[in-house]
């Protein structure tokens, strides 16, 4: 056995009710490492592109990585991989909390779930053991109550990851909700749990991970934590969490307002800003396990006479539910809590309701069509809509399909559905950042903001952020670096504020595993992951035609703010896309070339090799 991993994956077949620990070939760990690189490999190996996401044969892989279980900054992440119900293609979705640490401490590198149970169950995992338990009494309950019950049974140190009514009812952007205040939010992993009648996973453990040089690895982690603690970037991040991102997007004129029809929020000056939220609602910081930069915030607020407690608001929720739907701060917090309890992704949920609210405002839909009112700023109306989505009642059944399908079925202009490949885009208007325009367009799981985050490079130079030059190469390089972090798995917030980049993380990976890993090797792991996820998408039918943004961004200039007048130019956007494909070594249709796949050692499905 090597170091840094157990080479034990728990395979659970919910149809056959079997649980077994399987091993992967030893060379898999070195080549694919963990997290995203391994997850995208397993999706190919198990040929999941052949099956409907709702089919019994689909798998959900829940993976950690070789640094999980240590105190390397940013190590608190678990990722889920599957074929997405929302996009029909590649999906990874990541959450924080204590789940990753507990899973590794239980002696596993991951869990593979296939089949479909006839009755609701949950999976309980402890040191080298796992069992399926009845979830009959949990089915139908909200995420908070479900987690509370599971922790009362399995102990407060047990980590819990559950679905709410939205996941049970196959809402295509349902979340998996972990340790009360963390979510695998994007792409509908919750619906895949629901389809398998899996209400949740409970994990606890106390097995030490066999690292190559554990004392040096831990000592280095603590040294970094001690030395970086006074750094201004660290202090600022802890103080405001992601809430301060709205300061940036508002300043740059790329905030999200009324379904991407404006780039400047009027509510920002009233109550949707970090200072107002911090002063009135935030009561404490909430950190992921072993994180030295606890950016999560815990807020307490009253809504219609009841006191609620919620994790957040995070920037994306402030943006896609807050400034987008123009609700008040208290309503934003309530909708945040409601989505968490029902198990709804606030990004896809907010954008989908934004699409419906725009149609309502234009008089294309009325109260009778919807069975509810969706006026901009009407928090109670949006709350009703989220409940209707989670239970698929009335128009909620259609909204539960996501904005693309909703617009199509209702007969709206398809450009009002702000999505890529079926997944709604996050809180950065791409007209004011060509880097994000490209990232959203090519992101493997659909409109995702975490694959490259080019805004860090663009924010201080307006000419550059509106320019198309060099963006293909830039996005490619950022994606590869981040895919390396996502393979360890490291929170991608940390490298932007800590003196830890690819080279340093590669050094820590060497201490964990004993492998010599150069900078180039590390980036290649990321590049391999990106090519595997693309190959999976290609097998699902995704090509250049799908790497495109809604038409609104090409024909409606932003009306005011620092990006006023900006609109994407189709020909230059297409040229940028070609530049990206060229930088990637993909052909003009966005398909990885045989030479590139050979260079990275990527084969097609590899069924015979996957289990040692």
């Amino acid at each position: 056995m090597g170091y840094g991993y157990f080479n034990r994956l728990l395979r659970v077949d919910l149809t056959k009710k079997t649980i077994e620990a399987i091993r992967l070939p030893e060379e898999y760990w070195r080549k694919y490492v963990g997290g995203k690189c391994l997850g995208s490999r397993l999706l190919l190996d198990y040929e999941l592109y052949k099956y409907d996401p709702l089919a019994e044969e689909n798998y959900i892989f829940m993976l950690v990585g070789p640094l999980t279980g240590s105190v390397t900054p940013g190590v608190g992440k678990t990722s889920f991989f599957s074929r997405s119900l929302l996009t029909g293609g590649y999906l990874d979705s990541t959450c924080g909390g204590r789940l990753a640490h507990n899973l590794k401490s239980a002696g596993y590198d991951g869990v593979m779930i296939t089949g479909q149970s006839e009755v609701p169950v949950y999976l309980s995992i402890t040191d080298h053991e796992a069992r399926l338990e009845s979830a009959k009494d949990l089915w139908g309950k909200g995420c908070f109550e479900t987690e509370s019950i599971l922790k009362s049974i399995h102990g407060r140190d047990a980590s819990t990851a559950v679905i709410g009514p939205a996941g049970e009812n196959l809402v295509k952007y349902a979340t998996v909700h972990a340790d009360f205040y963390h979510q695998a939010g994007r792409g509908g992993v919750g619906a895949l749990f629901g389809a398998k009648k899996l209400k949740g996973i409970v994990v606890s453990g106390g097995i030490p991970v066999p690292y190559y040089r554990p004392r040096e690895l831990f000592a280095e982690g603590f040294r970094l934590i001690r030395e970086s603690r006074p750094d201004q970037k660290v202090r600022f991040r802890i103080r405001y969490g992601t809430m301060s991102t709205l300061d940036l997007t508002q300043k740059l004129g790329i905030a999200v307002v009324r379904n991407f029809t404006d780039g400047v929020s009027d509510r920002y000056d009233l109550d949707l800003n970090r200072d107002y939220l911090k002063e009135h609602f935030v009561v404490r910081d909430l950190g992921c396990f072993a994180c030295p930069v606890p950016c999560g915030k815990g807020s307490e607020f009253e809504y219609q006479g009841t006191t609620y407690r919620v994790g957040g608001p995070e920037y994306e929720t402030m943006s896609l539910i807050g400034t987008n739907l123009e609700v008040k701060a208290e309503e934003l917090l309530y909708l945040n809590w409601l989505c968490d309890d029902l198990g709804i992704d606030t990004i896809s949920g907010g954008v989908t309701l934004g699409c419906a609210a725009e149609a309502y405002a234009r008089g294309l839909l009325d109260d009778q069509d919807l069975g509810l009112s969706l006026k901009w700023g009407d928090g109670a109306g949006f709350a009703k809509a989220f409940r209707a989505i989670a239970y698929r009642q009335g128009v909620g059944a259609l909204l539960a399909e996501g904005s693309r399908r909703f617009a199509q079925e209702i007969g709206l202009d398809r450009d009002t559905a702000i999505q890529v490949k079926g997944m709604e885009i996050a809180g950065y208007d791409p007209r004011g950042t060509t880097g994000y325009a490209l990232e959203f367009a090519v992101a493997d799981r659909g409109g995702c903001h975490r694959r490259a985050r080019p805004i860090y490079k663009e924010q201080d130079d307006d000419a550059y952020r509106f320019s198309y030059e060099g963006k293909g190469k830039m996005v490619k390089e950022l994606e590869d670096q981040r895919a390396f972090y996502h393979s360890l798995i490291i929170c991608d917030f940390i490298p932007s504020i800590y003196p830890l980049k690819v080279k340093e993380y590669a050094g820590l990976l060497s201490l964990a595993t004993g492998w010599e890993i150069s900078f180039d090797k590390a980036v290649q792991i990321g590049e391999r992951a990106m090519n595997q996820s693309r190959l999976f998408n290609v097998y699902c039918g995704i090509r250049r035609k799908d790497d495109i943004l809604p038409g609104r961004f090409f024909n409606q200039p932003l009306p005011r703010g620092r990006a006023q007048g900006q609109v994407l130019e189709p020909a230059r956007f297409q040229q940028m896309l070609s530049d990206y494909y060229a930088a990637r070594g993909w052909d003009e249709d966005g398909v990885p070339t045989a030479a590139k796949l050979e260079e990275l050692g990527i084969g097609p499905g590899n069924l015979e090799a996957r289990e040692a």
Partner: protein
Amino acid sequence: MHLRVKVSECAFCNLCSLACAFKHSGTLSLARAAIRVSPELPDRLKVKVNFCIQCSQGYCIESCPQKALRREEDGRVTVEELLCDACQGEYRCVPACKVNGIFRSPDGARPVKCDLCGGDPECAKVCPNELISVA
């Protein structure tokens, strides 16, 4: 001399526990940590942090049949490893403590208890919000 923790701002990252375990055992086993964090969620947004406050009553000292626990001149209560037999697994000091600040050892050795790292505690150096100090 004792540890002071500003619990109201704790973000329950558990780095204090991990640094404690590493300093005293070279591992990251939470069962080796003399400071332990328990969030009380979600009905309250509160956290409990348990650790020895080196209280003047010294109930643990009184409870020890081997007289392995003793008060140092600087006020700390320490465990003399050679004298402690863990009460053959009974750990009488553990239930004697009124603040749940002393813990059983996972391997039956002497109890796990804060010794302030001799006056320069590791937990204080890693707490992200700098909530731990020595008073």
